[in-house]
């Protein structure tokens, strides 16, 4: 079969970084082509070149045998290339349906035919397995639902190639299954899919061919038959990676640090109670919309309507009077799920982002100590292996996984006693993941308590002491880590 898309010798550089060097790649119709690589390897950049978002410095794109240029994303869409970006591009103040058909609303120029619009949107949403109403504003959606809207939007172009840049980073269990079903439908109807992910199980499960990128180059491409975890990891990292082992039985009973007596939030959470001990890593599992993130946000004072109370170091605290500022002052910090809107100042230098949670640490009597600030930020860049030209770089110019590491660094900087992590490894590559796991464990060993939310259930089990499963806003089940497995969690999460 002829490749539908050929990429030949593409190079692209940004100030101070060579993001792509001489990349060549063939994409065939009806195949799922997996692309893996460390954070900053150039995956997203390559996809942006293919979809007309950025222009390459050199090289050519051959589409169905003819050389083409995509000066704008629209040009690529017209040819039949749709992309789901790693960073969402939805308009928060518009409805789901309007976002899907942005710029292509059905009807006449002077009159939108809303009925048609909503019907088509519903059909698309159903096809991708999303449970969102087309009239909902995107602002009100959860991250995972936004992901489905992005997928529906890409499908609406009736493209011949769909590029998915880390679509699964925020999905788990049944949501993941519906993503895979969507991909299967696509390939059955002859559409080629380019699939980027840091979860290697998925890659070996669904991709027919796999390309590995490292430092801006495609280092190898091989069929699934030749793929195995070790080979892929070696390709990504250029070396073997020691993967984490399951946590040993935790060390005796320690005192309770955080005790949620009761927590309710509208119809999203009812009577949640659980406790967190010193030095404990507690996992929160559940489906999208089960209320995991709401629990985290309530504990951090971000949910204004949360009612109930909790004990923090034996002090009674009411949720209504809680705020992020008070939380941080009392030693609770949260890593938010939505890094773009709540985590990072995308166009301010990285060091400002890192230190903002606790400026007193880099100031004296109200005066900033810039040297200390830069050193502190550089320390994190090194520790978390953030790939950036310097601490003055703006997060906007970093790759997705590296942005995530900056958010993680920012939370660590406040030296919390209780650390709430909502998807801490979202989009982080396999090597850096191990690094983050180690840091989390070290923190626990130092006596810090950690509440961990992850849609990657396979990472909860080795990391946590205990896992509680949330279902429709209630605590459904509780497991000790050594007795938990994905099956059990899935069962409890589904009902």
């Amino acid at each position, binding site marked *: 079969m002829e490749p539908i898309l050929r990429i030949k010798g593409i190079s692209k550089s940004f100030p101070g970084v060579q993001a792509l060097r001489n990349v060549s790649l063939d994409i065939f119709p009806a195949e799922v082509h997996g692309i893996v690589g460390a954070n900053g390897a150039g995956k997203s950049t390559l996809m942006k070149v293919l979809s007309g978002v950025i222009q390459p410095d050199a090289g050519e794109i051959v589409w169905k045998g003819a050389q083409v240029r995509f000066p704008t994303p629209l040009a690529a869409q017209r040819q039949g290339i749709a992309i789901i970006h790693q960073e969402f591009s939805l308009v928060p103040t518009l409805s789901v349906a309007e976002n899907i058909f942005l710029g292509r609303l059905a009807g006449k120029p002077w009159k939108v035919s809303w009925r048609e619009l909503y019907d088509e949107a519903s059909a698309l949403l159903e096809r991708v397995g999303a449970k969102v109403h087309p009239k909902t504003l995107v602002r009100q959606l959860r991250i995972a639902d936004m992901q489905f809207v992005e997928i529906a939007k890409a499908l609406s172009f009736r493209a011949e190639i769909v590029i998915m840049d880390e679509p699964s980073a925020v999905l788990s269990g049944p949501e993941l299954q519906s993503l895979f079903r969507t991909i299967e439908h696509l390939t059955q109807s002859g559409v080629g899919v380019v699939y980027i992910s840091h979860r290697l199980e998925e890659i070996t499960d669904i991709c027919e061919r796999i390309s590995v990128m490292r430092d801006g180059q495609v280092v190898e491409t091989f069929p699934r038959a030749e793929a195995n975890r070790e080979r892929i990891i070696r390709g990504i990292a250029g070396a073997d990676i020691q993967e984490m082992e399951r946590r040993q039985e935790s060390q005796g009973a320690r005192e309770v640090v955080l005790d949620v007596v009761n927590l309710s939030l509208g119809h999203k959470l009812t009577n949640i109670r659980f406790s967190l001990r010193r030095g404990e890593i507690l996992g929160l599992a559940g489906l999208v919309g089960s209320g995991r993130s709401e629990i985290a946000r309530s504990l951090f004072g971000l949910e204004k309507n949360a009612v109930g109370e909790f004990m923090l170091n034996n002090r009674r605290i009411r949720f209504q009077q809680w705020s992020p500022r008070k939380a941080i002052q009392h030693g609770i910090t949260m890593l938010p799920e939505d890094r773009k809107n*709540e985590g990072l100042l995308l166009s*301010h230098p990285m060091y400002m982002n890192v230190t903002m949670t606790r400026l007193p640490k880099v100031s004296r009597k109200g005066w900033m100590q810039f040297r200390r600030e830069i050193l502190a930020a550089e320390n994190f860049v090194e520790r978390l292996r953030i790939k950036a030209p310097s601490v003055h770089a703006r997060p906007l110019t970093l790759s997705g996984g590296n942005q995530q590491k900056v958010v993680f660094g920012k939370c660590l900087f406040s030296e919390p006693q209780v650390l709430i992590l909502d998807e801490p490894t979202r989009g982080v590559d396999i090597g850096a993941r191990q690094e983050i796991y180690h840091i989390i464990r070290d923190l626990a060993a130092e006596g810090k308590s950690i509440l961990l939310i992850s849609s990657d259930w396979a990472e909860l089990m080795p990391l946590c002491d205990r896992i509680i499963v949330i279902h429709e806003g209630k605590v459904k089940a509780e497991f000790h880590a050594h007795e938990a497995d994905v099956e059990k969690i899935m069962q409890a999460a589904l009902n």
Partner: protein
Amino acid sequence: MNATVNSAVRERMHVRFLLSDAGPLLALILLMAIGSMISPVFLSKGNLYNILSQIAVLGVGALGMTYVMISGFFDLSVGGVLSLAGVLVVGLQPSFGFTVALLAVVAMGVGIGCANGLLLRTIRGDFGASIMITFGVGTILAAVALLYSNGYSMTVQYSRFLSWLERGGVAGIPAVAVVLMICAAVLHVILRYTVLGRYMYLAGASARVALSSGVPVYTIRTIALCMSALMAVIGGLMETAQTASASPVAGVGYELDVVAAVAIGGTSLSGGWGSVVRTIVGVLLVGVLNNVLILVGLSTPEQMIAQGLIILVALITDRQRKSNLS
């Protein structure tokens, strides 16, 4: 070959960045060069003295507005504050003495800033809300100034401080400009070197991110609004001293002149970026432009057209700088 293409691209970006970033300063230098060529009077001591005393009122207001805009708000009450400060200080002086009158208007300034801030905090207001709330407050203040003075200008009894403001000076620099420079230095140091200053930038860059990082966003913005009202009070005192009378309509249109000067200097309208130095450049640019236009004999409407054009250019380059960055 690739490498050379890249470095050329980088070079060009660098030049473009420099142009838009240092644009206001370059424009100022250019304007001064033109001024000195067109008119021999331009660089004379007397004319420079004039420029400095004419920009002072605008300048102090712009300093305060810089804080408000960096922290993500707008303050349209400064015109009202300026008018009211003028008539109050003149009105209170006969019965209570100048010092008490001065303290009273300073307290009023801080009070108005706090009121603006508290109102906005209560409604969890955003940028748009700050425009409406401070506009409302400013309108009320302007009305109070009219009521207090019965609509007439009030004649000043010069105290020592006011007459120093009017014709005093240090080393040939007019007193009002000295005050402006002191304010600028203090505000610059706070903004650039203190935790408070950093908080201003963080609050303006993204209120949501700042709030969830423990930054007391509304407190910071309230401080900025107080700063701005205080600066408008100082502006009111200068204006009163310079015109020998306190007019209840002295501040009409002041707020927009101030915003324009800040924006011309290159401080971002959307918050999170900017500096006192930029604002001073913006104020000088406005001042020198008006002066040059007068020297070549243009009339007020033509000055207004020129000023309008500059504002447009400033905003367009601001937008371009942003798109260059991303």
